[in-house]
């Protein structure tokens, strides 16, 4: 570790760091703008200037940029030197020449890095007498608001959007003091990660549009450490609430998983929490099918009358917490419990858990995936099924360029230089899918195969790796590429609902493990707690179809946060409903299952409850309520405890508090033994106090409800967690799982994160959040014999599921902006198929042979496996379609194109003067 001197203070610093990093690590406040811990340095803003001295006799020194200067043994610096201080102030003064004085009406105000840095350098008085440059703003879609006049030209937006996230439709235009960052013309930003611009921009150019429409200042938000429910990756998020509304979601740093960035589903998909379709009170269905609202006691007593001496079955949910699922299963008994997966998905996920526990390959975090030097993706369109993993792979393919840089002695943080050196050199990524994926642009090879062929292809690679000649140059090449890699990564998952794809992925990984202990195998799961639910599964569990078939014998069926219409075909749903079984459904939003339930119980959303979710890698993570549930909503775990008591069951009678549920779950099975360590229990105190959800500057705490009542209510008491619905206490160095937001004196923006990190870009001071429950083994995956049915040539098309970031996930699609972006359900076809069927992009096509004939909008993609058509899964109108079904396709002759109509946000753009030209 080199030793350097800064203003006479001797510091041991990390070899290979730059001085800015060294300063921040030492707790020194060196201002910066363009540098970003995940994106490195380009030296554009010139803000992190300090003076470097040649030696101890050099008293003059010269100004250098901290972010562009490597630490070297014995180097001497000063932050406090007069010329450095003056220069840093001069930079801010220059940036402020054109920056509007609109902080009071800017959404960034109060968490603006530019405000912080302006105060930090001490700039106050304006000397510039010229006029300010102004720009025209663009309409960028329903998620991001654009206000170019505020731009300080740090290039962070372009560097994140294009260089880091692979987006192409945003960049720098023009030059000198007329630089402009935006699209070529108005339009919706295409990147699935566009929302990160909100946090990457050091000022208010890119702001959260839905938040802007329902705005509160950062200091007025109540936040909690939470976990995204959008997919199986388990990104850490920090939702913020005020006035009982979920206002916005920010990234919450997790060193191993999401780092600094989350996808747009995660950031913007929480709007359903405020939806008008939320269930506020218990509802009892009358004979006419309508629901009457009843209070909690009435609901429970109704349930009690049904449950006396009744046969009670339960259906769990892969989107409900581990605790809720555990309680339901324990209460009704494992032989009366279904995990709540569709039959196809259930068997795949169970096998997935089996593989992850027996494979010799490492089951990597995203951070570990980013170290891969050769990647094989089997079957997954990752950007839509595990978006944050896809973003990680974009970083992994840069490892080749980082290796080239290392060879030249170029530090990895020299971002522009590394990119210039490597040009388009990428580490190999091979994508084998049934249709185009959003990572195709960085792939060395893309192969387009039917689901069965994907599995077969994977097995052929595995066989080739084991020495069996392939007689196929491409398989040879891919096998050599993987076996030649230091850290090969195989990724697959359940999104195609094709178990043998996962088998083949495991086989490839196992074959690589023969010679390489650093082989990684990652399997994506669809929902936030799919893995957790699968881990809870027991051999005695029922499948959903078991439940449907045996429905006549079930008196009461308790359905936990699960819309069965998404898992069962319509005929089965009908059969279940008509069986006469009393259905008690607990859920957050109206859905088909609730429509058919006898009793509906209002469940708290993720933002109003707590629980544990297990992600793709088997990492258990705890989410905490952001605000207390309103109306008669209760967290599902509390409903279940009460229902169990009502039913006369003694199984759960000892449990009252959440922590006790966790302990019981931990005791139930060895695999959950450490569950209590996922996060501190409710007794945790930091210096005698709870962790505050509210900031120290939270305003109007006692007056916030004055419009309703002038009586000052007591702050709600949180009896279940170590967090308080209050502002007292410290938010500083508690365990990482308990960090609700980042804020530090002088650092009001999210850039204060470095004060919470043990070192720049390192884990949090509070350690790593989450706990790995699944561990690899030394025994290896037991091979299952694959059944690959030979598809017969016919005039039928095989349906494959197409997952959409916006639209496929159940809850987020009830957010207005997400619904707008999701658009209509669609069918994707290859160019050749479209030609054959005489349809064009946007036309409608009839799909027959799978339930009722339906009409879908055509989307044409570059890659689609022969004989296959993709349907947008998770959309209401594709509910009848099932994966693997063979269907007739025909141009919908009844359909006539509508005259072009404007969607809501297009009208907005017209309003601001934007011109929508056809691209």
């Amino acid at each position, binding site marked *: 570790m080199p030793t350097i001197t800064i203003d006479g203070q001797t510091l041991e610093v990390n070899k290979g760091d730059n001085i800015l990093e060294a300063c921040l690590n030492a707790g020194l406040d060196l201002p910066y703008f363009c540098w970003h811990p995940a994106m490195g340095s380009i030296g554009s803003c010139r803000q992190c200037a300090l003076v470097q001295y040649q030696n101890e006799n050099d008293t003059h020194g010269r100004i250098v940029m901290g972010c562009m200067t490597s630490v070297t043994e014995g180097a001497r610096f000063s932050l406090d030197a007069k010329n450095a201080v003056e220069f840093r102030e001069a930079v801010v003064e220059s940036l402020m020449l054109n920056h509007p004085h609109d902080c009071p009406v800017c959404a960034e105000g109060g968490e603006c890095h530019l405000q912080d840095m302006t105060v930090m350098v001490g700039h106050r008085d304006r000397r510039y007498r010229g006029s300010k440059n102004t720009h025209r703003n663009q309409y960028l879609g329903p998620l991001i608001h654009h206000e170019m006049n505020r731009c300080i030209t740090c290039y962070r937006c372009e560097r994140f959007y*294009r260089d880091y996230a692979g987006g*192409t*439709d*945003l*960049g*720098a*235009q*023009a*030059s000198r003091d007329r630089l*402009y960052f935006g*699209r*070529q*013309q108005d339009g919706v930003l295409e990147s699935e990660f566009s929302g990160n611009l909100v946090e990457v921009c050091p000022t208010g150019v890119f702001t959260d549009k839905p938040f802007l429409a329902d705005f509160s200042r950062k200091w007025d938000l109540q936040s909690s450490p939470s976990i995204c429910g959008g997919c199986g990756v388990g990104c850490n998020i920090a939702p913020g609430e005020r006035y009982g509304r979920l206002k916005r979601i920010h990234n919450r740093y997790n060193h191993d998983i999401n780092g600094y960035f989350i996808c747009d589903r995660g950031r913007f998909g929480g709007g359903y929490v405020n939806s008008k379709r939320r269930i506020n009170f218990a509802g009892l269905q009358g004979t006419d099918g309508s629901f009457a609202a009843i209070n909690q006691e009435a609901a429970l007593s109704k349930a009690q009358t049904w449950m006396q001496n009744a046969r009670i079955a339960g259906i769990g949910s892969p989107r409900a917490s581990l605790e809720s699922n555990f309680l339901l299963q324990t209460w009704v008994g494992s032989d009366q419990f279904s995990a709540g997966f569709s039959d196809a998905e259930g068997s795949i996920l169970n096998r997935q858990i089996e593989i992850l526990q027996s494979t010799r390959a490492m089951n990597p975090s995203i951070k570990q995936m980013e170290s891969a030097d050769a990647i094989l993706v089997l079957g997954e369109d990752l950007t839509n099924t595990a978006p944050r993993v896809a973003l990680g792979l974009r970083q992994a393919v840069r490892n080749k360029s980082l290796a080239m840089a290392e060879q030249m002695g170029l530090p990895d943080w020299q971002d522009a230089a590394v990119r210039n050196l490597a*040009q*388009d050199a990428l580490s190999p990524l091979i994508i084998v899918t049934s249709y185009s994926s959003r990572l195709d642009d960085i792939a060395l090879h893309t192969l387009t195969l039917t689901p069965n062929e994907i599995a077969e292809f994977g097995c052929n690679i595995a066989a080739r790796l084991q020495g069996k000649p392939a007689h196929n140059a491409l398989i040879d090449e891919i096998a050599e590429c993987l076996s030649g890699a230091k850290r090969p990564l195989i990724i697959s998952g359940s999104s195609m609902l094709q178990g043998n794809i996962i088998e083949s992925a495991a086989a490839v990984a196992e074959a690589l493990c023969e010679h390489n202990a650093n082989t990684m195998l990652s399997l994506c799961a669809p929902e936030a707690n799919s893995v957790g639910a699968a881990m809870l599964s027991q051999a005695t569990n029922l499948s959903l179809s078991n439940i449907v078939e045996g429905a006549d014998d079930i008196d009461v069926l308790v359905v936990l946060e699960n819309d069965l219409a998404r898992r069962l075909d319509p005929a089965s749903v009908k059969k279940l409903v008509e069986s006469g079984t009393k259905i008690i459904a607990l859920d957050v939003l109206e859905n088909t299952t609730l429509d058919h339930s006898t009793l509906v119980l209002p469940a708290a959303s993720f933002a109003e409850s707590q629980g544990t979710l297990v992600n793709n890698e088997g990492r258990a993570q705890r989410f905490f309520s952001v605000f207390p549930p309103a109306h008669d909503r209760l967290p599902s775990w509390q409903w279940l405890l009460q229902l169990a008591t009502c039913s006369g069951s003694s199984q759960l009678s000892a449990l009252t508090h959440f922590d006790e549920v966790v302990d019981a779950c931990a005791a139930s099975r060895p695999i959950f033994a450490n569950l209590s360590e996922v996060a501190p229990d409710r007794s945790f105190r930091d210096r005698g106090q709870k962790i505050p959800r509210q900031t120290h500057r939270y305003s109007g705490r006692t007056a916030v409800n004055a419009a309703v009542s002038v009586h000052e209510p007591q702050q709600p008491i949180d009896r279940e967690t170590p967090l308080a619905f209050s502002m007292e206490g410290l938010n500083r160095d508690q365990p990482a799982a308990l960090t609700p937001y980042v804020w530090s004196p002088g650092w009001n923006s999210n850039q204060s994160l470095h004060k919470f990190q043990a070192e720049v870009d390192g884990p949090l001071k509070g350690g790593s959040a989450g706990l790995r429950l699944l561990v690899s083994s030394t025994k290896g995956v037991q091979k299952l014999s694959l059944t690959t049915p030979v598809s017969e040539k016919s005039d039928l098309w095989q349906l494959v599921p197409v997952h959409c970031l916006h639209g496929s996930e159940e809850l987020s699609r009830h957010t207005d902006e997400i619904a707008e972006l999701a658009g209509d359900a669609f069918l994707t076809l290859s*160019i050749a198929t479209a030609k054959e069927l005489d349809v064009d992009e946007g036309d409608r096509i009839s799909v027959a042979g799978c339930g009722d004939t339906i009409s879908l909008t055509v989307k*044409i993609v*570059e890659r689609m496996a022969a004989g296959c058509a993709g349907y947008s899964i998770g959309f209401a109108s594709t509910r009848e379609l099932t994966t693997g079904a063979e269907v007739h396709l025909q141009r919908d002759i009844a359909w006539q194109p509508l005259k072009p109509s404007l969607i809501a946000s297009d009208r907005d753009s017209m309003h601001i003067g934007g011109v929508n*030209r056809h*691209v």
Partner: protein
Amino acid sequence: MTQDMIQTDLNSVLSHEEIQAIDAELAHVPYKSGAAIDALKIVQAKRGWVSDDCLIAIARYLQMSAEQLEGVATFYNLIYRRPVGEKVILFCDSVSCWISNSDGIKAKISDLLGIDYGGTTLDNRYTLLPVPCLGACDRAPVMMVGEDLVTHLDEARVQLLFGQTTEANKD
């Protein structure tokens, strides 16, 4: 975007000759976007400027996004993203010409043509733009009119060049 569609779009926007010329440039760059500036110049050569349609067509041909190409196009002084007249007057406003009264000459030209920098005459014959030093300082003040370098400018010379176009451009 599919290959077929690209082809249709290109054929309707870029000419065969333009595509051939771009292909020639592509022969000696390692990846297509490397020929971005050449392609912009090729397309501008005959048309005078690069329209949105052209920009988008070139971007697709070079497998770049329109944003990426727009970033390049708007960086350079000699790529025109707005229509220009038949001839562009590149008037040197740098120091040696300034010392030799280029401001006065420029005022005279503006007067004769009825346009300031960035403007195009009503008859669409000329667009007037400033240009950095043209490297003919020993013959200052200078300008380019279309492809011709015109040196030793004075009011009489300018009158001779543009005098007859004045009437046509009076409002």
